[in-house]
C-alpha cells in the first residue's frame, strides 16, 4: 500500500485528536458592518465560514481556503484580510466590513459603481473581494499609478481576466477623491 501524501488527496493523518472526541464551542461576539452578533461556533470556524454559514453574509466567497485567491477579502479594522485564513474567534472586538456593508443604504459605494461603469468583472465571483481590496488599496495610498494598482491588486485573482478594467475602476475612484 502506498502511503503517499499529496495535497490533492486526503489531508495528513497527523491531525491531533479532538479533546474527548469533541471540539470546543466558543461563544463570541462578531461586529460586522456596524452590528454586533452574539454567536456560538466551533473554534475551528474561519471568519469566512462564520460570515457565510452563521450570518448568511455570502458576499465574501470561498475560492481556495488558503489565502491564495483573495475572493474572501474583507476589512478587519479597516485592513484588507483573507477571511479564509482568519479564525472567527480571533476577530472579537474588531470591526469587520464585508461587501454587504459597503453601500450607504440604496446608494452604491463609488467603487461598486466604478466596477459597473468599467465592466470590471464578468462572472462576478471574485468581485466582492476585488471591490473590498480596491477600497483598501486606495486608502493605503497604493493607487498612485496603474502600475502600482496592478501590483497592489495582485492578491485578488480574476479568472475571467478583467484586470485592465479593474485597474481603470480603481483609477477612476482614486481620481475622484478616494474610497
Amino acid at each position: 500500500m502506498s502511503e503517499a501524501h499529496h495535497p490533492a488527496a486526503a489531508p495528513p493523518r497527523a491531525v491531533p485528536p479532538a479533546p474527548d472526541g469533541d471540539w470546543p464551542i466558543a461563544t463570541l461576539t462578531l461586529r460586522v458592518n456596524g452590528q454586533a452578533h452574539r454567536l456560538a461556533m466551533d473554534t475551528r470556524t474561519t471568519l469566512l465560514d462564520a460570515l457565510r454559514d452563521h450570518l448568511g453574509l455570502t458576499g465574501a466567497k470561498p475560492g481556495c481556503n488558503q489565502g491564495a485567491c483573495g475572493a474572501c477579502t474583507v476589512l478587519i479594522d479597516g485592513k484588507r484580510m483573507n477571511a479564509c485564513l482568519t479564525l472567527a474567534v480571533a476577530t472579537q472586538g474588531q470591526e469587520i466590513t464585508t461587501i454587504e456593508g459597503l453601500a450607504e443604504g440604496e446608494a452604491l459605494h463609488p467603487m461598486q459603481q466604478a466596477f459597473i461603469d468599467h465592466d470590471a468583472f464578468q462572472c462576478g465571483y471574485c468581485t466582492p473581494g476585488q471591490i473590498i481590496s480596491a477600497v483598501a488599496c486606495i486608502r493605503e495610498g497604493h493607487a498612485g499609478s496603474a502600475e502600482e494598482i496592478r501590483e497592489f491588486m495582485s492578491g485578488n485573482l480574476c479568472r475571467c481576466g478583467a484586470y485592465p478594467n479593474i485597474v481603470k475602476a480603481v483609477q477612476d475612484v482614486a481620481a475622484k477623491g478616494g474610497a
Partner: protein
Amino acid sequence: MNAIIGTPQPRLDGPAKVTGAARYALDNSRAGMLHAALVLSPVALGRVAAIDDAAVSALPGIRLVMTHRTMPKLEEDKPMQEGGHAHASFRPLESDEIRYHGQPVAVVLADTREQAEYAAGILPVRYEARAGAVAHLPEGAPSEEEVGSLDVGDADAEWEASAVRVTADYEEPAQHHNPIELYGCLAEWDPMGGLTVHVPSQWAGGMRAGIAKSFGLPADKVRVVSPYIGGAFGGKATVLGTTLLACAAAKLAGRPVILQVSRQQGFPTSSFRPAARQHIRLGATAEGKLRAFHYITENQTCRFDNVSFPGGEILARLYDIPGMKIREGLVRTDVNAPGFMRAPAETPAVFAFESAIDEMAVALGMDPVEFRRRNEPAKDPVKGLPWSSRSLLRCYERGAELFGWSQRSHAPRSMTRDGDLIGWGCATAVYPTFISTSSATLRLTSEGRAEVHCSASDIGTGTYTILAQIAADRLGLTPDKVTVRLGDSAFDPANVAGGSTTALASGNAVGKVAEQARAALFQALTEVEEGPFKGMAPASLSLSEGTVRAGNATQSLAEAVSSLPRGKVEATDQWAHPEMPAKQSKMLWRAGSPQGGPDMQSFTALAFGAQFVEVRINPRTRTIRVPRMVGVYAGGKILNPRTAHSQLMGGMVWGLSNALLEASEVDRNHASFVNADMAEYHIAVNADIPALDVEMLEERDDKIGPIGAKGLGEIGITGTAPALANAIFHATGIRVRKLPLRIEDILS
C-alpha cells in the same frame, strides 16, 4: 425597433454582482442541511481494501460515511462527447476500483463543515495499490486511436514539390480551468421523490437530464438551478462525479447536503485540458505560396472514455493550401476524464500551427503578415463553400496599424530597448462559428414589462444583458423594462453555454419570440371591445417607447396588456438555422446539444482575428515580460461592445496565462497532478497583464442567422500563445515549441 442592439449597455446583473447579492450555488443553505467532505485516494491504480468508517462515525456531528459499499446504485450515463451528459462514464464509489489519483473513495456527512472535514481527514482507508500508473503524455507515445482525419488534395505530392519546407513538433501541457468559484453543489430531495440541485452549470437542461438518468428519474423530477456561475470555461458543462456523490449522499441521509469541493480536490475530480502534441510539416514555394500541410497529433485521454479535441479541421480553414493531410489521435493515461476547456480544440492547435506559419515566414525571409496575405483563401479550402463573412486581412491591417508593425525590424535579436531584447510577434486568432439552436419564452406583462425565460447560462459572458437588449429592441422598450431569467432547467431548453454558441442561438430565439409576442399583442388589441385599436388592421399598430400606436390612437403597453382577457401575452418558440436538419434541431427538446458548423450546407462560418504582442526579455536573466498586446477581431454583429470587449480581453488574458504560466505538473511517481492549488498552479494576476488593446471591426454576416453575431467567448485566447512564441523567437532567435514558454527554454 430602436437602437439598443450594438450599444455598450451596462450589465443588468451588475448591481447584484457588486453588492454581494448575486446568489451562486454554494451561497444557498437549507435548514437541517448537512456538510459533505470528500476522501480522495492517494493511489492512482488499485482498489479500496478496507474503510474503517466506525473510527469516525461516533465523532460528534457525523451523520453518514458513504463508501462504495453504501453508495446507491446509479444508472449509466455517457460522456457528453458520446451523446450523454456525464463528465466521465466511470464514476467514483460505484465499486472498489481506483483508476486515477485523487478519485473519491468516501463522503463524510456532518452537521458542520469543520466536523466533516476533520473526519474525512482521519478516516482510515486501506488501499491495495497497483504499480504502473501513467498520468502524463509519455514521450514518443503513438496514437492508440484515430479520432480525426481529413485529406485535401495530394499532401504528399505537394510536400515533395515544395521549394521551402518546415518540419516541427509542438507540445502543450495538461491545464486545469481553476474558476475562482469552487466546484460543489447543494442537493435537496423533496418528499415526492424530486431532486433539486443548485450547482454551477453551463447547461442546466443537460445536467438535469444527466442527473435524472443517473438516478433513474424522469427528467421532470429533477431541477437544476444555476442563475450565477462563478467562472466556467468549459469545466461546468457536464455532470461531475462529485455532483452525483452529493445527490446520492443526500438521498441516503434524507437531508439536504452541501458539498464544497476544495481547490486541491477540484484538480482530480473535475475535467481538465489534456496534454497534446502536434507534428507539423509545411511546404511552400519560394515566393511564399503554401502548398503542403501535414498535421499529426496525439491528445491525452483517460482509460475509460475517448475525449478528443481535433483542431485540424479548423486549421485547414486558415489559409489556401492545396495539399493537406490531417490525422489526430488519442493516447490513454491513468487520469480522470479530460474535458472542454476554453477553445478546447483550437487553443493547442492554433499555437502549433501559427508557430509553424511563423517558422515558414522566417524560412522564406518574409514579413509574417505579408506571408499570410499571400495565402488568403477566397473560399473554404476544405468544402469549397463561400465564407459567410471573413475579415482576417482587415484584422491584420488594422492590428498592424495599431501596433506599429511597420516599424519592426524583421531579423531576430535586432530590436533592443534599454538593454533588453525586444520581440514583436503576431498570429491569427480563429474560432469556428458553431450554429446551434435555442428556445425561449417571452411574456408581456400588465406592468408594461417583458419577461424572458430561457435555460441558457450567463457564465459571465453578458447573456442576461444582450438578451434584454434584443427583446427591448424588438419591443420598443428600454432594457431595464426587460427581466431576463436564465440558468434554470425549468425554463425552455437551450444549448450548453459552450462552443461560443449562446449569443447567436438564444439571441435569435429571443428575437423570434419577441416578434411573435408583439404580433400576438397587436392582433389581440384589435379585438378588444371599446379598445382604441378595435377593428384596426394589426399591421397598422406599432410599439415604441413603451407605447402602442396606430394613427392617432395611443395606449401605454401596460394599459394595452391589462386590457386583454388574460392580462398578458406570451410566446414560446425555438429558433433553428434553416440549414440545420429538422432531425438535428428537434434534439434540443431531448436534452441534446445540436449544433452545426463551421460548414453548413451553403456556407462556412468562422470568426477571425489578428493578435500582435511585444515581449521584453532581459538578456542575462531571460525574464519574459509582456509590455503590450493588441487584438483586432471581426465577429459579425457586436451586440454589446462593452461585454464583447470584456470577453475578448479576458480571452487574451487567458492566452497570456496559457502561454507563460499554466501547466498541471505531473508527479510521475504517483501519477498525480502535483501543483494542485492556486499557490502553485499559476494563473495570470493583475501585475502580469500589460497594456491591452482590443478592437472589434464592423462585419456584416447575413448568413448565420438574423442576429448575425459570431461567438466571441473563445477566439480571444487562440492567437495569444503563438504570437508570444513568435515574439520570443524574434527577440532571442530561439524557437520554443512547448508551452508554457519559460525562462529555461531561452537560456542558451
